[in-house]
């Protein structure tokens, strides 16, 4: 079960004119794996991720996500992935329930499934009291959890999380990672970018991008051994400073 590759990338490159944002990257992510995608700002993380979620066409190379090719079937990829951005983008002027209904709807879920799922979701997150309140009135940590649950509404094979814990306090971050673990355990693959090195330690495997290239890819434990340092922060600094 754990052997199947959900994301497969080979020599993937993206150029904007003369500038090579993503330079010949190769990696794969297995089902149920939590894959950390690290890199300094401008290293090419976002560009690489955009190609994998089907909103940006690669210049060359190969990439498969959830068994679909990014060149030929980006629309099928979209149906099988979830995405959550650093802005926890929900609609502030819609209630929790209305947000769930809307996002369920655009993924083509039927009314009865949406109803059933939103009940489960509201109960699990303990949102019974605020289910009919506008999302704008809720604290950031709650928005983050709702956004994550909404991204999982259609049972995607892979969830892409783009800096999902920005601006959130440490306790909420901890709870959030527990949610991630739970879902990975259930077989959902998690592809996460982050700037927090303690979070990198939580990942099964971590890749670090520098100037458009993947300079390191292994488990946090092996990476620390390879670079002969105490923690991931030092691994990152060693790589990023060259």
């Amino acid at each position, binding site marked *: 079960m754990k052997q199947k590759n959900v994301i497969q990338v080979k020599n993937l490159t993206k150029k904007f004119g003369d500038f090579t944002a993503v330079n010949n990257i190769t990696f794969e992510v297995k089902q149920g794996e939590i894959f950390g995608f690290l890199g300094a700002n401008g290293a090419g993380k976002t560009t690489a991720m955009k190609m994998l*979620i*089907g*909103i*940006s*066409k690669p210049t060359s190379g190969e990439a498969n996500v959830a068994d679909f090719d990014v060149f030929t079937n980006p*629309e099928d990829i*979209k*149906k099988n*992935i979830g*995405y*959550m*951005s*650093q*802005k926890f*983008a*929900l*609609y*502030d*002027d*819609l209630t929790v329930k*209305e947000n769930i*209904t*809307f*996002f369920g*709807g*655009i*993924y*083509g879920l039927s009314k009865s499934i949406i109803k059933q799922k939103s009940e489960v979701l509201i109960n699990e997150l303990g949102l019974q009291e605020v289910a009919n309140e*506008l999302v704008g009135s809720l604290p950031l940590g709650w928005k983050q959890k709702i956004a994550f649950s909404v991204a999982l509404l259609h049972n995607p094979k892979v969830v*892409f999380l783009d800096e999902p814990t920005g601006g959130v306090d440490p306790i909420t971050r901890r709870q959030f990672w527990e949610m991630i673990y739970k879902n990975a355990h259930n077989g959902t693959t998690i592809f996460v970018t982050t700037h927090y090195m303690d979070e990198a330690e939580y990942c099964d495997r971590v890749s670090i991008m520098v100037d458009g290239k993947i300079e390191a890819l292994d488990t946090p434990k092996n990476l620390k051994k390879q670079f002969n340092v105490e923690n991931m922060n030092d691994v990152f600094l060693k790589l990023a400073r060259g």
Partner: protein
Amino acid sequence: MKRFIGFITKEFYHIFRDTRSLFILFGMPIAQVMLFGFAITNEINNVNIAVLDKSKDATTQEIINKITASTYFSNKQFITNEAEIESAFKKGNIKAVLVFEKDFSEKLIKENKATVQIITDATDPNTANTVNNYVSSILQKYQQETNKNIKPIYQIVPQSRMIYNPELKSVFMFVPGVMTIILMLVSAMMTSISITREKELGTMEILLVSPIKPFQVIIGKVVPYIFLSIINAIVIVLLSIFIFKMPVQGSLFLLAAQSILFIINALSLGILISTISETQQTAMMVSLMGLMLPVILLSGFIFPISSMPVPLQIISHVIPAKWFIIILKGIMLKGVGITILWKETLILVAMTVFFIVLSIKKYKIRLE
């Protein structure tokens, strides 16, 4: 289709939960029509005049009565010497002073000629001009009446008839203009703001990553505004018919069809604006500066295009509002049909297609 309905429902939540956009959508059109209809007018009514009558005889009295009997003027005061003229104007409530020369009747009989001086306050040139014309025509009429028995050697009689708006009501000129402005504002500004808002909030990204297609997102955003703009157009037409007695001489169906065409034109402009602006603020500024000002100044709404300098006349051709105002005036006042208005209609259609194609191109470039 189900996705689509969900999308539109969500859009209506946005609109109805935001008091500011509700006000722009429904409060402003009514306020604007009322303002332009009642407050802004080129007609004169009850203009205060003063009279300096140096002869005080039967003829001058008769002329004064004739002038003040009309609804255009009311005689505010009699003044007794020339020095008072200036102070009467300076106080501000007097717009014109009539000065009858000494021995008016006598001169008229003996010399066949007497003068009355019309002094007008030209700080407001339009009013001054109109007052001057009105007084002159009253004097001329009086002259004709008294000369009835005398046969002139020959006479040229101008017979003027003002057609399509015989009472020269300025509201007839403003209604098409206001309707154009409001449809432009609601359709273009509101859609561009609502699309850029999704960009700002980051929800646009989520939508693009979802299976819903970009053009479905845009159509979903636009449909509610088409609907609301149509309601707006109906409200404006009803207001102008029932409150300002504006006629609709032509076909109501054609009026509706043309309005929808213009709404779609404005919406496509709104989409175009949203593809070039990143924030709501930019979208609003671009809409206001790029659309509102040209619509007000260059569409022929207030200032006649034919009296503009040639470069401005050329620019006015590319402003959709100009063509829509011609169409509106044609249908509402002249009662003409598509056989006459096909050229303007075709221009609007072409512009709409152009804007849509351009936005699709821009949108694609952004996605790359």
